């Protein structure tokens, strides 16, 4: 780990400071942490999966990890670099709810056409259930992915066209306290 590697350059710092809601010192700290885990500055899909596997040993986390990876990998080069990471982190912990929802929408809109179809939602929910579903006892009305997706669509798809637009998504999420709560997981803590 060379010296150049362990610190952000001035320009990078400036850029990131501008793009995120982090202080410069915080950026440096996070960068150090990031480099410590990923010495070459990026992580690929496999590493990403491994992390998830470690955190969720009881289920199959690979699918969900892949979906999440796509969200992080903004430039779709198969790698997550620090910039992508820190921008996401900034959004997730210091962003407004609006930002967070915009960001979150990208997970569900797998083909990135601006709409979440029933199938897309089902994919994500299924992956999530596979990952952690066994660890938690779910309420009977959402104990299968199908039930959950149906419930979500009932709540979000206000115009009943079978797909959820970004607006619908935001609106629906805002109406759901538990979703907001989960979105604010990191608020104020990072």
């Amino acid at each position, binding site marked *: 780990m060379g010296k150049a590697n362990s610190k952000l350059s001035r320009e990078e710092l400036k850029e990131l400071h501008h793009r995120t809601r982090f202080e410069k010192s915080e950026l440096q*700290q*996070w960068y*150090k*942490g*990031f480099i*410590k*885990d*990923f010495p070459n500055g990026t992580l690929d899909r496999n590493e990403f999966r491994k*992390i*998830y596997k*470690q*955190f969720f*040993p*009881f*289920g*199959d986390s690979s699918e*969900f*990890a892949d979906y*999440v990876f796509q969200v992080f990998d903004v430039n779709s080069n198969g790698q*997550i670099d620090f910039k992508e*990471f820190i921008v*996401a*982190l900034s959004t*997730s*912990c210091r962003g407004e709810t609006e930002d*967070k929802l915009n*960001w*979150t929408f990208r*997970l*569900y809109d797998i083909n990135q056409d601006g709409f979440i179809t029933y199938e897309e*939602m089902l994919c*994500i*929910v299924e992956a*999530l*259930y596979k*990952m*952690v*579903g*066994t*660890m*938690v006892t*779910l309420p009977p009305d*959402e104990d299968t992915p199908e039930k*959950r997706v149906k419930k*979500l669509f009932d709540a979000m798809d206000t115009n009943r066209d079978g797909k959820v637009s970004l607006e619908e998504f935001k609106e629906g999420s805002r109406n*759901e*306290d*538990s*979703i*907001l*709560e*989960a*979105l*604010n*997981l*990191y*608020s*104020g*803590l*990072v």
Partner: protein
Amino acid sequence: MCTAQLLHTRFYTQHPDRLEFSKTTVCITCMFLACKAEETVKKLRDIILAAHTVIFPEKDILSADDHEIEVLRADVIRCEAALLEMLNFCFDFPHPHPLVVKFGKCLKAYPCDFRRTHLDHALMTFMFVMSSNAWLLRLFTSQFFNSWLAVTYLDKYLGSVGIQHYLCRELRRFPLEEIEFFLPQLCHLLLTRPDESVALEALLLDFCESSTHICLIMVWYLQSYLSDFGNAPHSPSFRLCRRMLVQCQEIIFSDETVEDDQDNISELDSASSGTVTVRGRMNAIRRLLSKDGPLGTMRSRLSGKLGSRLWRIQVRENAPAALVGMGSILGAVASPILGLNAGEIAMIQGRRSRLDSQAFDTQTMIYQERAESSFSASDSKLNKANGPGTESEDIEDSSKPAQSEAPLLANDDGQADQSVLSQGNTAVDLTQSLPSLAISRSATSTAIMTDHTALTLPDSLLHHSSPSRPPTLEEFYQGKAFSVKRYYDLEKTRHARNESRNLPSSATHSLRAHRQRAATLETHRGASDDQGVGSDTVGRHGAREPSANPLLRQSYPASQPPLTSPVSLSFDETRRGSGGGSRTNGTSEFSHSDDPSAETLPYPATLHRNLLHRHYFQSELQFVLSLTDISNRLVVVSRQDRQSSLKAELLLLNHNLPANVCLPLWCSAKDKYSPHHKIVRIAPTDAVVLNSAERAPYLIMVEVVETDQSVEELAALGKMQSSQRLPVPSASQKPVPTALVDLTQQAFVAAQDLAGGSMAESSMRLNQREKEKETSVLGDGPLDSQRTPVDNDGPIDSSSFSPSGQTTGTSDTILLDLSTVDLADQHPSVHQDSPILDSSTVESPRELSNSLMASNTHHQQEVHMRRNSTNTEDFQERMRTAAVLLAQLAQQEERTKSWGRWQSTSGAGNAANLSHHLLVHGKGGAGTSGDIGVPSGTAADGAARTYTSAQGMEEIRARIIQEMMMLEEQRKRLMDTPGGHSRHGSDSWSTGAGPVESNPEVDVSGATVSSGALSPTVPLEGDVLEDQTLLRDKVKHKDDPSAAIFREDWDAKVERIRVSSPYGHLPGWRLFSVIVKTGADLRQEQFALQLIKEMQRIWESEGLDIWVQYYRILVLNDSSGLVETIKNTMSIHSLKKEAYSRRRTSLDLPVFTLYDYYLLQYGAPNTDSFLKAQDNFMRSLVGYSLISYILQLKDRHNGNILVDKEGHLVHIDFGFMLTNSPGSMGFEMAPFKLSQEYIDVLGGLDGVKFTEFRDLMVKGFLALRKYADNIILLVDMMQKDSKLPCFVSSSANASAALKERFQINLTETQVNDYVDNMIVSSCCNVFTRLYDTFQYYSNGIL
């Protein structure tokens, strides 16, 4: 079986397509192969037969030559080949799944039981076939999951973050007591094998939050571990330990509040200043959170339960965790429940920075920063206190979230600053970043070094440090508190409360730092206006005095526990505090206790509660610290004197009780705010120093009251009670002994009224403290640095002395002493009188020598006068009431003793005469005035000896007085021996007087004198003993003063103490008997007892009436702890000894066995009482025999085996077990101790009882076998990287050997035989006898 299952699983996982073999065949093959692999070869045919009966239970058992078998056999052999091929002929099966066994057991299937296992097998196969860790989850969610399993897997899957988190979450669901049981293991696991997962850390911290006791216990554990790891400060273990300790302290000292009081508190916070901003910010965040969305369950759990400390729950620079966390945020919409669930793990995990290894430097840096900020904060606080300044708010804001920690660290870092300045030494930096070290008395050597350097810094720094450094700032508050009391009598109650709150916290930096905080809270609101410039300056001066103390303490932690230890310091403070208060108001001694609620009216209940809560922590820590300090100080006192020293110490301690302290293991308080029991008193007369060569453990009787009443109320009650009794002794000339005990107690209470007296005394102590500090500087530092501190001392001394500067002629004192003697002489025959008598007798020789010394130097006289001034003050008081006289006496005695102790301590501790002389000299110097700096400078030279000797006289004399006093006490105890008394009385006088008179002429070093003083003691003792006509007394007295204590029936003792205690009438009054031990690591004892407790539980759950005694041990650090005593027990050794001594007089048979004892105690062999006792004996013998075998308890001599009143055996002292044995001699070869006398008690080998014993042994062993995993787990978890001697001494794998001993593979009938064998081989085992003989000859244990 496991192997078979493994094979089976592997076979099907690797070759799911191989269907040419029937499943049955594969099963059988696996079984067969497993048998081979495990080298328990069974015939194939047997296996097939067994399998057949299992599979087709309805069919007849196949005959041996059945065709079916042949077919099967062929199949199996073919299958075996396939299997082997698959395995690559590798039979190295790691058995990661004792779970299989466990699971099987849950299903009530024994490993050897083929029929049952079939079901099990099927289940297991099914589970194994399932992918990944799903089977594990199934186990966890099954009904068989319990805390044992959880802990097992916590241990097993250490590396797996997810599993750890899951298990920890599960563990939280179990009742706290269940987890508390595992606490040693969990701590050990956490600390010895730090890994990726933060789950366990978070879990333990959670527990700390929820239970004050656990928190305290954790702190103590951590301290002991910290010193274990102390030699490797870079190891992750050490860092983790340190971090944990810091966090625990955080919890302890945090201004933490429950979230429902948020608003209340935050208002308060902004009102009161100091460390509060953290919480303010936290609340802001919480409010922000609640604005965004209502606090969900998870959320509130996180922020409420874990929360409270932002920096603790703050997510750090942990990229993987952050990635997962963000992932779960992304998934939130899909399913908030699952998202949160996943996120929680990420959050907890994220709490630990991945930069941890680097964090060291940064941490230090941060700490420094914080120290700075806190410095400025406290500076502003200071301003605020002195004037109505409000600028502190700004600075608080700048000091960032971790500010609350800053005061904790400030001190250390302040020092670090100094040292860094002077040395630039990074090592210093390193140690100073450990705030824990301030608290843990077991400071590492580096810390000591640092302190040394801090001490030896050039004077400029010392000067520099006075007003502007954080430590001094903190002292300032102390000083201010004092000065306020001295000069301003306003706000008395508030300050008294302030004081009482502050009372126990002076010992350590952090404690003091905290006190400062508390003080700030108080003073800000009420008393800030009252403090003028005058208090300022004096406070500044006064501040220097305690600051010397901690430094000193750390610089001499081992060799020389100075008198000015925190205990006395804090006591001084209390006295001074209350004394100051009472100067204007005679009744104000308890004025602070009149109505605590009234005092706290300005504060909402929650804050008050929090204050109390924090106060409890401090007091508790301080209390145990003082207990161990006493023991440490006792060590340096000669053995004969220990008893009286202890008494004196405890009187002093009592003085500070009742207090908000409890005995954590005994206390019933569960949750955070439920009332703890309160220790109201330690019966001083019932305390006894135990027999020990190099250590000084002592036994105390702790009186507690379980009540909601506040301490103040209790104190008032106690006072009331004792004042009711007061007239009794003063009116009648022959008071009952119990009342006298009371009186001494009362006396101490009354002593507080003596404002001037206590002032003088405290100033004397202050004086000493200064000297101590000086000495350390002189001793350690370059010689030329001496002058400055001395110069500093001058003004301080004078300023602190001036208020108490009433000096009177010695004649007054003599008068006083005479009357003292008079009064005391009126009841000389009462045993409990002795301390009082002693002090009276002490007075006279002191006066005698006083007059002798009249020609001596000015310094001496001054010191004397100061001392006498106390007397004068007291004298006036005494005129008023007889009780005050007694108070005076006790106080005097107390003081003299502590004087003597201090001197002997210094004498003994300082090998070098030089430092002793310097000490002496420093004292003289401080005694006079500032100009003494010059002589003290010369004193530094080695040649200064002669010069100082004159002043040394004073010291020496005091020491001799002490010796004499002790002697006197000794003699008093023997007073029931007629004849010897008077002669030896005069003896002691003359011998005592001898050195006194000879002193002025002789220029002797401290060491010589001390030996001179001691030497008459020894022969004298011998003389007295020779004169004894009753050998029994000799035996009892000389060797085992504790025997008498243990002899007394517990209930009777409780009743006696209850009657004598001023608190005895209170409803919740209870008595605990506790041994305070130092110099020994009690962790192994505790571990052994934990195992015993588990075995006890096993037997209980199996419905076996096997008796063992569990007793509680509280580990305080790596070298001290509290041990519960077992009621109504005596060691076989001492009961034999007693019997022998009795017999020798009546010329009985020489041999006294346990059987004789039982006959003697319980009557003839056929009486009911004997039979009952015999039965009890048998049941306990079973228990301890099995334990001895399983744990390989060694060192089982009769001194370590007790017999209780009902005839139970109780084993104690588990210093040798599992792998180690005393001296590695391997003497005790027998599985357990079963000597002839035991068999005799059981009624011989053919007796009914013996058969019963045998049967119960078998049952007990089977029960243990059934739950062997539990015990193995406990041992296993403790084993790794353990520093316990039972693991260290041998390279052998303790837990493997343990497992071996359970003989799991034996069938029940085999077990029967095995136990029989053990009994036979133990029976009158030659080694057992040999060991007893050895112990007899080497240690005189009968």
